């Protein structure tokens, strides 16, 4: 369906990067989970990879403006979010799917997505159509009026994705979006990701390397709160050879880079 463009959407951007972090530090409790991370991202689908405890979720929460950075600089859509700035303009252009998200069990999928659209301060007249469209895009049309407590894990995950994309965000942050999806839904989801990545900056945190290889244009590898490597998926695949651990070319590339980084760190 065609959608009318607002002047804000067609205005030229004045910022070189959609997401720009310099020496970013974020605490998770007392622990400095993100420690001196430099990252620049633009439009496209970016896969965020890293071992457990690498600071992926903490980084996602900081980018979603849920936690304030404790050091460094973070700029989203050209606006600094580390100071005492008003976060509302940035948050209006933000979509976020947390790793574990709570919900109101008695809401239906439609009510839940519409509530989130209302909180994102979308124009009232656009909400019903946008809600229907995002529910259709994640393939939950048949379950639109089912209560959230009756949904399976994979359906809940898709309802979470629907609320994240309902406002056509310029920055979309998805933390482990493919958990609980069956193989067919994962394929549909990759298709959706490619579609979303054409005009917004999508950052997908995952531990499934094959998801990244299939749907992402770009890979960001973090370890112990720092950026280890950033490059295209093709270059990632080219890093590995048969001597490295992994079942696919992308997995071998991933383990090759991680092993090289650890060897450098040990020296």
């Amino acid at each position, binding site marked *: 369906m065609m959608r009318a463009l607002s002047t804000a959407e067609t205005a030229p951007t004045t910022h070189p990067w959609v997401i720009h972090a310099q020496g970013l530090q974020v605490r998770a409790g007392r622990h400095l989970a993100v420690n001196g991370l430099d990252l620049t991202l633009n439009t496209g689908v970016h896969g965020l990879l890293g071992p457990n405890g690498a600071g992926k979720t903490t980084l996602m929460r900081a980018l979603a403006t849920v936690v304030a950075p404790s050091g460094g600089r973070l700029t989203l859509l050209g606006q600094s979010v580390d100071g005492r700035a008003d976060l509302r303009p940035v948050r209006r252009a933000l979509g976020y799917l947390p790793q574990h998200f709570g919900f*109101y069990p008695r809401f239906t999928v439609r009510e839940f997505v519409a509530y989130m659209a209302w*909180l994102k301060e979308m124009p009232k007249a656009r909400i019903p159509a946008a809600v229907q469209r995002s529910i259709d895009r994640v393939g939950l049309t048949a379950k639109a009026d089912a209560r959230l407590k009756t949904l399976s894990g994979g359906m809940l995950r898709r309802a979470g994705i629907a609320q994240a994309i309902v406002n056509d965000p310029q920055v979309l942050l998805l933390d482990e979006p493919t958990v609980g999806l069956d193989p067919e839904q994962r394929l549909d989801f990759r298709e959706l990701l490619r579609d979303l990545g054409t005009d917004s900056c999508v950052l997908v945190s995952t531990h499934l390397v094959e998801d990244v290889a299939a749907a992402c244009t770009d890979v960001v590898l973090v370890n112990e709160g720092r950026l280890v490597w950033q490059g295209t998926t093709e270059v990632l695949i080219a890093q590995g050879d048969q001597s490295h651990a992994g079942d696919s070319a992308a997995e071998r590339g991933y383990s090759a880079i991680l092993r090289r980084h650890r060897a450098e760190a040990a020296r």
Partner: protein
Amino acid sequence: MSTHPTLSQLDRYATGAPALDEPSVWAIEVHLEDCADCRARLAGSTTGDSRAVIERVAMNLAREIAASPAPDARTRPWSVLRHRWLVGTLSPWLAMTVAVLACAALLSGMRTGLPSLVLLIAPLAPLPGVAVAWHRRADPAWELVAATPAAGLTTLLRRTAAVLAFVIPALALVGAGTGVSLALTLLPCLAFTVATLLLGTLVGVHRAAIGLILTWVFVVVAPSLATARIPMFLQPESAGIWALTTVVLTVTAIFRVNGFRRLSRHG
């Protein structure tokens, strides 16, 4: 409006002839969007091939529309109100508040020797609801809401308003039933709500509410029950002082609105 294209131009447009250059195609398309007459003329010029395509598209669309569930066009004001303003998390606290008020009214009715319990606990009535209005552990969807522009102050004020809209009629009813002064139940209730928000800019709303509840219980409620006397500042003649306090606190809160911005970061 641009000039109408000639019939031969329309013919060439309809057949997709390469003789028509790109700018002319654009011009005709833009004109067709606005001009019903020319669209009707175009319909006469269509070729058999394009009519077949249109028919196939229409058939497929009709089949898909018949197969998918109808979009929900109903807007139920009551469900919108219930879902947006009285989000599920508040209802247990409001139910508790009403239960406590009802118990206080019953006790005052039975034991006439005691000072009016309704009068003593009226200032505290909205505080449990205000305490959980914007709190990380009280709202299951906190992580989701925290990334929206409505996070923090907006949500806190909305839910506080919802709490007051519920508690004030309840207090008025209970107060009328037990025969205590309406001003002396409602004014302290408002003053305490504003005081909680104001104190909340310094220590967080949750802590502020707990602190005020404990202070009032130990400093006022307990001694009054022990001595079986209503303290001087809850006597009818002090209603004016409560009114003045409420106004002063509200004005201070309005001037301190920047302090509330901090709330959009912390839960």
